[in-house]
């Protein structure tokens, strides 16, 4: 395993190395020490590598990740795994705002809580949060799944498209055009699979499913009060 100490080396050199496919072929496992909340750690990765970050990371950690498995042994700042395409990002602590924003694929696991706008404009990513999530989460979520084992804040799923939302705890309020929906077997199967992948042992039937009422899909003046 390659160890990289961010207290003695530059972020630029680290990310450049993590973009070097030839280097990564011989060094597929990385440990980053002393991140000290630095922004943009391990963003833009495009290889099947494993990266462990020992400590807290700042904004956009693992941004636009493709293929890589990145584990943060601490908390993360705004926009962890934003626009992720594939791979795995696992946050052992809490996540700040906009976790998994606009991400198109892969799996984001947050062991703690995630703040506001978790999964905003999600486009295919699967997000599993063991704790609670903040307000305006899954805003304009297009596809993918957001699983919340705790509670969800205000305006969950506002202006939702086709993303699936599963919440075990309380939902403070639903956003425009987001409604509770029937939990069918296909959804239980989908949820069970995600919980299993996140290594969470809990009963899927204890969750409620939320989705789009699809009333705002085409502009109608009668819906003006909903905007």
């Amino acid at each position, binding site marked *: 395993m390659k160890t990289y100490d961010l207290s003695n080396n530059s972020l630029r050199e680290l990310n450049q190395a993590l973009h070097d496919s030839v280097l990564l072929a011989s060094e597929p496992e990385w440990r980053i020490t002393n991140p000290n909340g630095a922004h943009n750690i391990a963003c833009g990765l495009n290889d099947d590598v494993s990266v462990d970050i020992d400590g807290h990371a700042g*904004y956009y950690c693992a941004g636009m990740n*493709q293929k890589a498995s990145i584990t943060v042994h601490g908390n993360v700042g705004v926009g962890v795994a934003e*626009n992720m395409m594939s791979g795995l990002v696992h946050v052992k602590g809490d996540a700040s705002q906009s976790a998994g924003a606009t991400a198109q694929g892969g799996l984001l696991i947050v062991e703690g809580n995630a703040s506001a706008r978790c999964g905003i404009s999600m486009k295919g990513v699967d997000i599993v949060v063991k704790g609670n999530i903040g307000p305006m989460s899954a805003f304009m979520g297009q596809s993918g799944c957001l699983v919340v084992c705790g509670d969800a804040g205000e305006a969950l799923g506002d202006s939702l498209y086709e993303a699936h939302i599963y919440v075990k705890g309380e939902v403070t309020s639903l956003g425009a055009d987001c409604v509770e929906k029937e939990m069918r077997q296909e959804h239980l199967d989908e949820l069970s699979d995600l919980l299993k992948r996140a290594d969470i042992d809990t009963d899927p039937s204890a969750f409620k499913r939320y989705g789009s009422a699809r009333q705002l*899909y*085409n502009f109608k003046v009668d819906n003006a009060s909903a905007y």
Partner: protein
Amino acid sequence: MTDKPTNPALRESATFGRDVIAEIQRAAETGIYDIRGWGAKRKVPHFDDLLFLGASMSRYPLEGYREKCGTDVTLGTRYAKKPIVIDTPVTIAGMSFGALSAQAKEALGRGASEVGTSTTTGDGGMTAEERGQSSKLVYQYLPSRYGMNPDDLRKADAIEVVLGQGAKPGGGGMLLGQKISDRVAQMRNLPMGIDQRSACRHPDWTGPDDLAIKIAELREITDWQVPIYIKVGATRTYYDVKLAVKAGADVVVLDGMQGGTAATQDVFIEHVGIPIMAAIPQAAQALQEMGVHREVQLIVSGGIRNGADVAKAIALGADAVAIGTAALIALGDNHPRFEAEYQKLGSAAGYYDDFQEGKCPAGISTQDPELSMRLDPVAAGKRLANYLRVITLEAQTLARACGKSHLHNLEPEDLVALNIEAAAMARVPLAGTNWVPGQQF
């Protein structure tokens, strides 16, 4: 609209003109505000209100047909390892595949590449046709992030972080369902036929301090190779440009209220933002005060139509301009040969602006396969290249007349204004005087 009545005693209201009455009647009947394409149609102070002071005794002109007048521009010299060098200061503004047909996007790439300039993606991602035909392609990074992916990001020659556009500063967008074809839906990860809403705010940053980190992220992902632009609609330009520079922009793109859109509320287009002529001096002042004028390049857009506009924009402080509406017209938009079809749509050649409906007879602002096929990307690209050459030559003509061996040597001192409004906005003297309204001497 009926022609003006012949009875000379009839008096039309200046406040409630026939167009105003028609709009009130339309609103009363439909209950929906008017959405349309194009940019502001109202008359605003513009470059036509400025004149160049050609050389005579006190200035020495360059020979029009023999002495060189440079037009090249290098964009992104501040931080990027690979700045973009364009041969003409006229670039193609961001317009999406979705709003435009794939053929139109390809034609824009072909025309721009033929004359050595750049073209720009839009909301909805990068198409293979566009990348393939564009020698220099700027990839827009928009709030919606439709079609955004790191593979295309790394294929781009520059990245343009879009905060707003001149037609609707402060507003998002809406691509109506009739233009969400199967391919558009797939690129944007949306169901077919639904209205695609584009957010007005980015989902993962708020404010210039966050933006600085976001820009650093984009640079890290692309290994600091390509320039990063920040595009803003012209409003509080002086402050916006300062913040853009602080956030780390290589290039600031400034879009005036005359800039076009694919679909926005008419009330937004006509009543938000300021004319580009009023914005450029503010931007130049901000860049000069920060000591980065010409180091952080300024691209301006919104109503650029000819070489005079290009030269005047540069004289006021821009490094380059971008064209959208004019480029579409060069491709074939609003051409009289489609007059009969424009009439069927309730419009006319020269007036057509219902880009949101997807019924463009010219095959440009549509996703209808049959209509799109009407546009030959090779021929349309050639027309665009011709037009770009013409306006570049026009700008050179004016620069030489002012004694300038490069377009960038044009300066505000070369200009005067025809009226007080233009003098105040452009910060140049009223013609025949040394009076610049609002400035001390």
